[in-house]
């Protein structure tokens, strides 16, 4: 298959692994920021094939996992109302809120629907003027342009029955938070290719220089990841710290200017709480005042709804790469994809779910 088989070739993978072994002279710790990359690494077993000493730390880049609990509770509160058609990407439906999830709400009669694009929700609103159609707009910079386009389209059509519950998050502030942590072990980053396809990598350059950390913009196929790791290790071995682009087939330094301008027209940067990491300054997007009428939190008056989290699982430590899923006492027993205690076990991109799907066994514990 053109542009797919080439990046899954076992022979080329072996050559990259051999090259990595030849280049690496000491242990290095590299974080892949994106959950999609975590999934490929674990699914293909790449992290277990790396030369001894090269350790991958799985980052916070799963938009489902970092969506704050109160956003989910607000979503449930809106979805449970009569006259509301609540739409979302499929992977948000099973994420547990404080008391329930959207799938269970649907089983109880709520009109909850999976859509594959926010434009679908706009079309639904246009076709069903008697219902309030709400779209759950979550994700990183990757999904923000399409969600912004949906708001613009709804405004153009004059739809009074369409709104979005926004919980967008931005990658660079999370990287800064990790790097500022005195316990941070990350020596290099693989940046998410699809985020950079929108945003480019200019904002990563000062970050790389200030913290002396190599950042490699990387794709999602097995060979992309192996090559990204190799480029990062080469920089580490030679004492360099720059932004490099492994994902040349999709990413330019300036990103996608049209997409970026649509995002900045509809959204503005705001402080945002990340599930498991807490509030991070200027790390999210919210609707600008011009488009505030499309804010579902405001329309349904759920903005004051606050959720209380209590320490049952170590999602925060997992999302920051401080711990592995297999370190969690609940992993694989009380916490499974069937009965997830936390978001990283729900989403296909969650680190815990990736480990569980690949059959990784819990860390053996003494009986003490």
């Amino acid at each position, binding site marked *: *298959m053109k542009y*797919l088989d080439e990046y*899954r*070739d*076992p022979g080329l*993978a*072996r050559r990259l*692994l051999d090259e990595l072994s030849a280049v690496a002279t000491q242990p290095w710790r590299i974080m892949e920021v994106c959950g999609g990359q975590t999934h490929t690494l*674990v*699914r*293909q*077993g*790449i992290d*277990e*094939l790396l030369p001894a000493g090269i350790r991958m730390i799985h980052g916070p880049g799963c938009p489902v996992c970092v969506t704050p*609990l109160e956003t989910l509770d607000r979503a449930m509160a809106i979805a449970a109302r009569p006259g509301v058609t609540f739409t979302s990407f*499929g*992977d948000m439906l099973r994420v*547990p*809120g*404080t*008391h*329930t*999830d959207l*799938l*269970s709400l*649907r*089983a*109880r009669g709520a009109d909850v629907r999976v859509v*594959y694009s926010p434009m679908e929700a706009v079309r639904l609103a246009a076709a069903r003027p008697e219902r309030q159609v709400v779209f759950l707009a979550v994700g990183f910079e990757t999904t923000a342009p399409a969600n912004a386009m949906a708001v613009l389209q709804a405004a153009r059509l004059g739809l009074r029955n369409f709104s979005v519950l926004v919980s967008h998050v931005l990658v660079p502030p999370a990287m800064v*938070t990790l790097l500022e*942590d005195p316990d941070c072990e990350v020596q290099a980053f693989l940046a998410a290719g699809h985020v950079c396809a929108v945003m480019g990598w200019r904002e990563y350059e000062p970050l790389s220089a200030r913290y002396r950390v190599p950042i490699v913009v990387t794709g999602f196929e*097995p060979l992309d990841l*192996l090559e990204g790791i190799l480029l990062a290790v080469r920089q580490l071995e030679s004492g360099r710290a720059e932004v490099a682009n492994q994902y040349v087939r999709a990413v330019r330094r300036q990103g996608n200017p049209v997409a970026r301008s649509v995002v900045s027209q509809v959204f503005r940067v705001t402080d945002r709480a990340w*599930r*498991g*990491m*807490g509030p991070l300054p200027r790390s999210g997007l919210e609707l600008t005042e011009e488009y505030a009428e499309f804010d579902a939190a405001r329309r349904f008056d759920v903005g004051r709804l606050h*959720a209380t*989290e*209590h*320490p*049952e*699982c*170590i*999602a*925060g*430590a997992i999302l*920051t790469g*401080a711990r592995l899923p297999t370190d969690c006492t609940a992993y694989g027993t009380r916490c499974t*994809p*069937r*009965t*997830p*205690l*936390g978001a990283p076990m729900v989403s296909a991109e969650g680190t815990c779910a990736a480990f*569980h*799907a*690949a*059959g990784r066994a819990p860390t053996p514990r003494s009986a003490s």
Partner: protein
Amino acid sequence: MTLDCPAPHHEDDRVLLGHGAGGRLSAELLGSVLLPALGAPDGPLEDAALLPGHPELVVSTDSFVVSPLFFPGGDIGSLAVHGTVNDLAMRGGMPVALTLSLVLEEGLPLSELRTVMASVGKAASGADVPVVAGDTKVVERGAVDRMFLTTTGIGRRLPFMRPTAAGARPGDAILLSGPIGLHGTAVLSTREGLGFEADIASDSRPLHRLVRVLAPLAGHVHALRDPTRGGLAAALNEIARDSRVGTEIDEARLPVPAPVAAACDLLGLDPLQVANEGCFVAYIAASAADAALSALRSLPEGCGAARIGEVVPDHPGRVVLRTLVGAHRVIDMPLGEQLPRIC
């Protein structure tokens, strides 16, 4: 930095869509509610059951609620015939007769009903099986979604052909009769208007002729399973569990058509968990594997047959995949098909 996460309360007093998806949730519903009520004996859950007192006969029943009714490569009518014919074939049964039950929604256009019934007739004659009895019910608008079909089939087993979910043995070769992922992605793409319809059509087809070409090797055919809901991942896990054997599969040898791989990549689906309606997985004694592969490839519907792995003496009950880059990972039983109402 806070490091906490909530422990939600789980709903467990309602039927969820996932309970009908052929994965873990389905097994839980069967084990906790359905089978105990029927006093069903323990043992493997087969695609078709032996008829008490008639060891040469097998019986199977299946309901069809696919949405949309029509999709590239088939419709609810042909699917209802093929689904039950294939369940019989997985026990070595050639179809003798079918019954057909219809539940129709008030207001359904008769033209749609005629089209579906024509398709049932064509599929049944194509599979050389008569529809000998049936029933029709009409319910008020909204009580069903347009039409639901139920087919029951009786099959006569080929001589010495005794495949069972508990029959796989260490050393067996695992063959797959054709490519995977077509049906689920075709139905999803049509239902959601995703635009893959031009490249992907359902593989819905009868499989009993493919099983029949294995008849000369009957004693070597240990287990057969058509990977419908839950996909190949569920089928391999069910056989590994019921036969108490380990399984090793080679990712590089899995026949995943390029458009299916592309659609699954785009949608975040695993082709191993996507439903199929026109292929089966066969556990064959190693000595007969090459002959079986040649036999399958001798028919058009088996031209894409491949040897995808083997049964191993280690890790009983577990399915392990050798990944493209040479590592190993466990293929777990899917929690539930990610695509409801695909059959």
